């Protein structure tokens, strides 16, 4: 019988009641009495010099409170970058200033130039139209390789060139890698593009800044995955507001996918303007603004070489990647192509020699930063594509080629600086092969061919580093933040309790899953536990939600705090039961004395803590509230094997996904239903990247895919019927270094699925007499058709 509560139960998501009945409280639902509205005048050119900006006429328009330009922010800090990468020569990356409002120059379409605060949004927009603005347009740099050429236009005049950093990892391995490649029996080379994406959370970004004249306190309501991080970055680096005078609230947030991690100009603006205008200021992004102001994702161009010996053992991997930073460094941008990418290049394989080179490039495009998976999808995609290509070149089975190179002994220290604690890659591969029914594939392909279709089966293995991350390690790697997580457990007098967590939930289901853990530990019903998150005023300093870290790091902090509570309640129970503390057992919400029938209920012990009449006051304090900060000792390493079957219509190039299976190892699983939902969502996003989504700029830096008319989001009917999916997580090698043995599941689907889909398409395009070597994402109908026709 499956469990009906606690760890392992598929408890229904309590938050869905409010989400599905329109009762959520999103940032745009928050209105402060007397608030004004801001409209940003944004650049419509990719690169230019502001030669004139005159706001006088606009300022006189009806309803205008005040118009701000770059000049108002001259003395204010710029948006900080949270990660400093050191390049292969030991030099730190170039870090150009990132102003809140453009200073003299604009560097991407969508960059805010002026901000009009008015009584109504309509008035703000009208006044913005009346701003007299002249921009001398400059040539734009869009293509990364062209941006690095001698004499290329510079995005930042003060920098020597457009190269942010040239990172070599691990530089000391370079010679050995070169030698291994020179001596290889076979080298497979592949050049590919990891397409640029726009995250497109359902809820666009919103910010409401408020200022209390009487207390001098500032409050920012914002769509963030990590309100404490925003408070720190904005307070300390941009506006100079000490944290005790600044509250950041991220209420219900309608999806983030990474793009709501970062600190944005609009948030800083609203907080600043609220004080300057002595009036709350609200901004709600339109979808069009989101396309040109939310940080984009991916955008890597990579050449990868895989060297094999005569027995098909991998002997070396070498990569050269160009990573687009956009016009400015977004909060965590430098870390994505480096430490979240290079460290994963071993994948599931015992390749002894690995060298990764990444050139991060400034271009006149929107900043690029973490997007679901962040670096790890880019690593997996290139590695798993080149392995499939090698298998085709060598005429060997792609499954067997992977298997013979699998890492099988743990812990395993890779040549790229990380140590995998546990895993069983053969187990997930076995499970995946069983679920996809590989033996039946030939018959299914024959059926498709009868209908004039091509059918392909693609597989993929992946590993990710999640549960981000040990603070001391990331500090050495350039992080300017710690990456612990926090929790306060506050038990009420009648035994119910509240967990205040630094992990933010924006759709992941923390409010359901976290109580399951507490319920398991104490033995009280899940509905006795409430989760509070998202408000710096009532939660301990937390680092927020990204990198599949909530249950692994935030959940562990909660466990540690609950352990302190349990230890204290045992002391109280021992006192009440007149027994030795060591003899007290807690089970199903009852404290009992081992070997006796004496017991006292959880609720009575809690009551005693708050009504301490009969209480060991000389030994312990009254009350029941504990806080813990948890800093992991390692990343977690979820891994899996995915497979996909596609049908391709060679006449039109249309690809349909016929079957998709995932066999994941997430370690222990708290709520299987939520985990499966996370994987489904991740796979949908991965299929979106593989088949549909593409953020495209023209050579002038104009965004061509600037709305849903041209940016193809996956819709339900782009994805297979639910019956065609199998999402399995039965292979479990628990994490060895966190108390729950969990690894995290939030990004797996988005990491594992793109190469699976493309490998399947290429398998199809190498059947029926076709021979297609390569296709880039998104494998749109026109590209597939062109690939078939160019090859033949």
């Amino acid at each position, binding site marked *: 019988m499956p469990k009906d509560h606690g760890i392992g139960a598929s408890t229904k998501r309590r938050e869905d009641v409010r989400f599905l009945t329109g009762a959520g409280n999103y940032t745009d639902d928050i209105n402060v009495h007397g608030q004004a509205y801001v409209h940003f005048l944004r650049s419509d050119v990719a690169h230019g010099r502001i030669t004139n900006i005159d706001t006088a006429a606009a300022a006189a328009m009806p309803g205008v409170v005040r118009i701000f330009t770059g000049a108002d922010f001259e003395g204010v800090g710029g948006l900080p970058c949270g990660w400093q990468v050191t390049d292969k020569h030991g030099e730190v990356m170039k870090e150009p200033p990132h102003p809140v409002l453009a200073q003299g120059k604009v560097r991407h379409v969508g960059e805010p130039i002026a901000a009009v605060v008015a009584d109504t949004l309509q008035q703000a927009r009208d006044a913005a139209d009346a701003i007299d603005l002249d921009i001398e347009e400059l040539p734009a740099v869009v293509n990364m390789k062209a941006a690095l050429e001698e004499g290329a236009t510079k995005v930042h005049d003060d920098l020597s060139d457009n190269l942010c950093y040239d990172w070599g990892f691990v530089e000391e391995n370079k010679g050995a890698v070169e030698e291994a490649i020179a001596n290889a029996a076979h080298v497979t080379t592949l050049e590919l593009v990891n397409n640029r994406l726009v995250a497109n959370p359902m809820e666009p970004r919103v910010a409401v800044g408020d200022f209390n004249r009487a207390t001098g306190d500032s409050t920012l309501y914002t769509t963030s995955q990590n309100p404490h991080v925003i408070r720190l970055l904005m307070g300390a680096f941009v506006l100079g507001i000490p944290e005790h005078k600044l509250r950041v609230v991220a209420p219900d947030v309608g999806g983030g996918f990474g793009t709501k991690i970062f600190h944005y100009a609009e948030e800083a603006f609203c907080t600043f303007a609220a004080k300057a205008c002595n009036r709350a200021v609200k901004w709600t992004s339109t979808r069009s603004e989101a396309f040109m102001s939310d940080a984009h994702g991916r955008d890597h161009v990579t050449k990868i070489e895989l060297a094999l010996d005569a027995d098909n053992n991998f002997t070396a991997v070498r990569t050269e990647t160009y990573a687009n930073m956009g016009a400015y460094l977004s909060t965590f941008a430098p870390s994505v192509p480096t430490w979240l990418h290079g460290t994963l290049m071993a994948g599931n394989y015992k390749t002894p020699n690995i060298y990764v080179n990444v050139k991060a490039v400034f271009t006149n495009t929107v900043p690029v930063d973490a997007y679901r998976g962040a670096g790890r999808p880019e690593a997996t995609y290139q590695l798993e594509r080149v392995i499939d290509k090698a298998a085709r070149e060598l005429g060997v089975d792609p499954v067997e080629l992977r298997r013979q190179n699998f890492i099988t002994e743990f812990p395993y220290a890779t040549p790229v600086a990380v140590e995998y604690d546990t895993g069983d890659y053969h187990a997930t591969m076995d499970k995946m092969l069983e679920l996809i029914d590989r033996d039946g594939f030939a018959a299914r392909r024959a059926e498709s061919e009868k209908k004039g279709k091509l059918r392909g089966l693609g597989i993929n293995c992946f590993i990710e580093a999640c549960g981000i991350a040990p603070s001391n390690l990331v500090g050495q790697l350039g992080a300017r933040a710690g990456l612990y997580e926090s929790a306060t457990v506050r038990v009420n007098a009648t035994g119910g309790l509240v967990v205040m967590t630094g992990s933010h939930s924006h759709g992941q289901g923390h409010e359901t899953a976290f109580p399951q853990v507490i319920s398991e530990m104490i033995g009280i019903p899940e509905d006795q536990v409430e989760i509070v998150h998202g408000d710096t005023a009532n939660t301990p300093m937390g680092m927020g939600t990204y990198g599949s870290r909530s249950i692994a790091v935030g959940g562990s902090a909660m466990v540690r705090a609950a352990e302190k509570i349990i230890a204290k309640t045992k002391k109280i129970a021992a006192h009440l039961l007149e027994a030795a503390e060591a003899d007290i057992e807690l089970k199903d919400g009852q404290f009992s004395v081992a070997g006796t029938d004496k017991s006292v209920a959880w609720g009575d012990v809690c009551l005693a803590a708050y009504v301490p009449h009969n209480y060991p006051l000389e030994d312990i304090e009254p009350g029941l509230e504990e806080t813990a900060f948890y800093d992991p000792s390692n990343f977690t390493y979820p891994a899996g094997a995915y497979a996909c079957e596609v049908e391709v219509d060679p006449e039109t190039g249309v690809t349909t996904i016929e079957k998709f299976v995932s066999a994941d190892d997430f370690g222990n699983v708290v709520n299987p239903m939520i985990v499966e939902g996370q994987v489904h969502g991740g796979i949908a996003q991965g299929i979106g990247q593989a088949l*549909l989504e593409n953020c495209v700029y023209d050579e002038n830096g104009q965004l061509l*895919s600037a709305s849903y008319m041209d940016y*193809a989001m996956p819709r339900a009917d782009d994805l297979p019927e639910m019956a065609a999916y199998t999402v399995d997580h039965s292979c479990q090698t628990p994490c060895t270094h966190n108390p729950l043995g969990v690894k995290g599941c939030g990004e797996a689907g988005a990491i594992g699925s793109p190469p699976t889909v493309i490998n399947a398409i290429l398998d199809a395009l190498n059947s029926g007499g076709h021979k297609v070597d390569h296709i880039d994402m998104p494998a749109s*109908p*026109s590209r597939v058709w062109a690939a078939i026709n160019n090859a033949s």
Partner: protein
Amino acid sequence: MYSFDIERPTTLADALAALADDEAQALGGGQTLIPTLKQRLASPSKLVCLSGIEELKGISRDGDTLTIGGGTTHGTIARETAEGFPGLAGLASKIGDPAVRNRGTIGGSLANNDPSACYPAAAMACGATIVTNSREIAADDYFQGMFATALEEGEIITAVKFPVPESSAYIKFEQPASRFPLVGVFVAKYADRVGVGVTGASEEGVFRWTEAEAALGGNFAESALEGLSVSGDGMIGDLHGTGAYRAHLVGVMTRRAVAAAR
């Protein structure tokens, strides 16, 4: 959006009077115009809402002629022509989503003449007649390139007359993002001729593929199209597909439409 006045006439005469104002613009279902206004890409000072005018709505059949009021929604067309004119019903049923179909009108679509709109393909293939408050215009004369039509300022499409074909089908190859046709082909078979209307593909807007019409006129079968193709020159090329791809799809969609015609 900029602010504007709105008038809600209930008769065609009142609508025309209201539209006499230079700055006025007709509002059909608003499924094209409202998004345009929201983006501040148009600034009419007055909108004249046609949706309260009963005489612009409804579908009637007289012999082999189907007359559809200019204010009839895609949803109504999809439902009410399903039996008598399944090709047109199929076309209407695949426009946008239910909200779009319940608001958007055939008159608005034909007036807008988006190069990727669906109805123009049907109008061309069938040799429909566009009826306005002042005249009747043959489809061949009505469409004049992307977003350009024979309509004068303030002229209202009151109805569209379709000769009902013996069999017909519309096959739309969807642009992956917008789901407007990347290429849409309407094939209509009559006793004495076959019409093939192509939308989405050409830089000149909707067109009739006359070679295919001739070939199919002799033999209404997929095989009649063998060896026929349109050139990629003058076809739209964009991030969703090259001109050559669109030209190729014209052939494929035409064949599929012939196979699907009923």
